[in-house]
């Protein structure tokens, strides 16, 4: 567990406006791992991703990349934010967006080159977005935009890819399409993926590990270790049931009257 991972959070705590958002968050992500960052809306998933990106300072604890503090401009992390509100008149074609993934953070002008065009075309093919390479990005559907943003994030060859709710508001086939693209690229390129979602089910076939966030704390481990009623009840601080039906998992709160303290007191050795 304590081997030097690609990314390591150690006792991270965050307070925003006097309110504690996250407390004692520790986990490690190793190269090539597919990790689901799962939890209800408002649990602190986005805050956690922002911490890893260096956009949100921590109140306590440390974030280490390759065992060292994160440098201010770290090309080893790619990022796909929550659904972007892109206007249709944004003058960016899909290939322009992916191209900005290479050097959009740089000043000055660049001249077009053949090598660059080919790199962009290859990346679009890898995420299955070549069909709409010349469309305006603001005119695409949510699932198409996600593919483009994944290509944008991956073209700079990061070793860790963070995605914030990439499956939110997608229809089921787009959802499956995105998950399989990510799983394939993670395996083929050895990229570690940390993906946040409020529903873990679409990720079940591909997820190596889970970081479950609730009430500002996390439970970390293999999916079958973490998604247990005792573990999640302790995390939520109230009794929850884990229901498995047709290979799907539902986490539901107990009705009023069930003694939370009893549930919390149960064995929670998988929580760390």
């Amino acid at each position, binding site marked *: 567990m304590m081997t030097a991972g690609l990314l390591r959070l150690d006792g991270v705590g965050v307070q925003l406006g006097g309110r504690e958002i996250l407390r004692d968050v520790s986990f490690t992500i190793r190269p090539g791992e597919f990790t689901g960052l799962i939890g209800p809306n408002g649990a602190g998933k986005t805050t956690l991703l922002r911490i890893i*990106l*260096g*956009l949100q300072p921590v109140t306590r604890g440390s974030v280490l990349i390759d065992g060292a503090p994160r440098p*201010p*401009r*770290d*090309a080893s*992390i790619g*990022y796909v*934010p929550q659904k*972007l509100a*892109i*206007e*249709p*008149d*944004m*003058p*960016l*074609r899909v290939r*322009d*967006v992916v191209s*900005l993934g290479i*050097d*959009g*953070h*740089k*000043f*000055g*002008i*660049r001249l077009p080159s053949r090598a660059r065009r080919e790199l962009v075309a290859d990346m679009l093919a890898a995420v*299955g977005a070549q*069909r*709409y390479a*010349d*469309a*305006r*990005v603001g*005119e*695409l*559907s949510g*699932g*198409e935009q996600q*593919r483009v943003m994944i290509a*944008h*994030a991956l073209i700079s060859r990061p070793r860790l890819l963070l995605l914030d709710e990439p499956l939110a508001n997608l229809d089921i*086939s*787009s959802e*499956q*399409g995105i998950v399989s693209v990510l799983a394939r690229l993670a395996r083929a390129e050895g990229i570690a993926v940390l993906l946040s979602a409020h529903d873990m089910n679409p990720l079940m076939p591909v997820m190596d590990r889970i970081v479950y966030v609730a009430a500002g704390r996390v439970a970390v481990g293999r999916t079958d270790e973490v998604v247990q009623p005792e573990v999640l009840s302790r995390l939520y601080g109230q009794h929850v049931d884990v229901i498995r039906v047709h290979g799907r998992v539902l986490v539901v709160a107990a009705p009023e009257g069930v003694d939370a303290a009893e549930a919390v007191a149960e064995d929670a050795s998988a929580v760390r």
Partner: protein
Amino acid sequence: MSHLLRYIFEPGFFGSGPVHVALAVGTVIAITSAVVGVFTVTRGQSFAGHSLADIATTGGSGAFLIGINQFWGYLAFGAGAAAFMEMIGVQRRRGRDVATGVVLGAALGLAALFLYLGTQSSTTTGASFTILFGSMFVITSSTVPVLIVSALLALATVVVLARVLLLSSLSPEIAAARGVPVRAVGAAYLMALAVSVALSAVIIGAVLSTALLIGPAATALRVAKGPVRAMAVAAGIGVAATWLGIVLAYDSFYWPPAGRGWPVSFFVVTLIVGGYLVTYLRRRDRREAQPEMPPEALEEEQVCSPA
């Protein structure tokens, strides 16, 4: 042919000093405004551009009152307003709406006072008109180098920032995560915007200056998909409207009421709006005539839905 040319270009057009100045300065300013405008529209800051124009009006009329060149008034007030907007944070939409509404009213009220006092104390009755609606034929030759250098500086600023501006427009979060100083870039851009508003104010007037900024850019964004092409098309439209406006204004000296030319800004703005309407109608036609998506886009994983 030569007869036709003589019909279009009234006698003396190519020999007129003020026309030369207007063409030269108009070209540089039209290009700068159009290119800056592409980013203004992309970043959703058209309203900020218009606010800067209103406040520049106050600056221009203040400069007239104390007897200095109006460009300095436009520039000082525009830049000051840009700095203020940056300080209060133009990103907070609601606060921004209320604050700008109040501030703009006050700014135009001050402009009215300055113009009133200015025209009372001097006999230049055309000054109010020049400040509000511009006049390219009265640009004094001593200000030409200043105008051209300012335009080139604003243009250079947005060209150098082009990629980071596009990335920040796409997602400020991604830009920040990749080490872009998003706020500083936004501030630098707002300054370039203030400068180009001041420049447009010189040629088509403070009140109309956003037309030259937003119009060509908005039209270009309807017809050109990529960023470089959009900037080129916008610049082309801006220059064409400016040149045609100058030609027509010069010709209009012989139109009724004879002996008084019509204002350049009227022609420039009308041409820009006309161009926008043409693309608007054309685009609607095309959308109605064609299916929204080619059929092959719907096969495979069904990830496409009509845009």
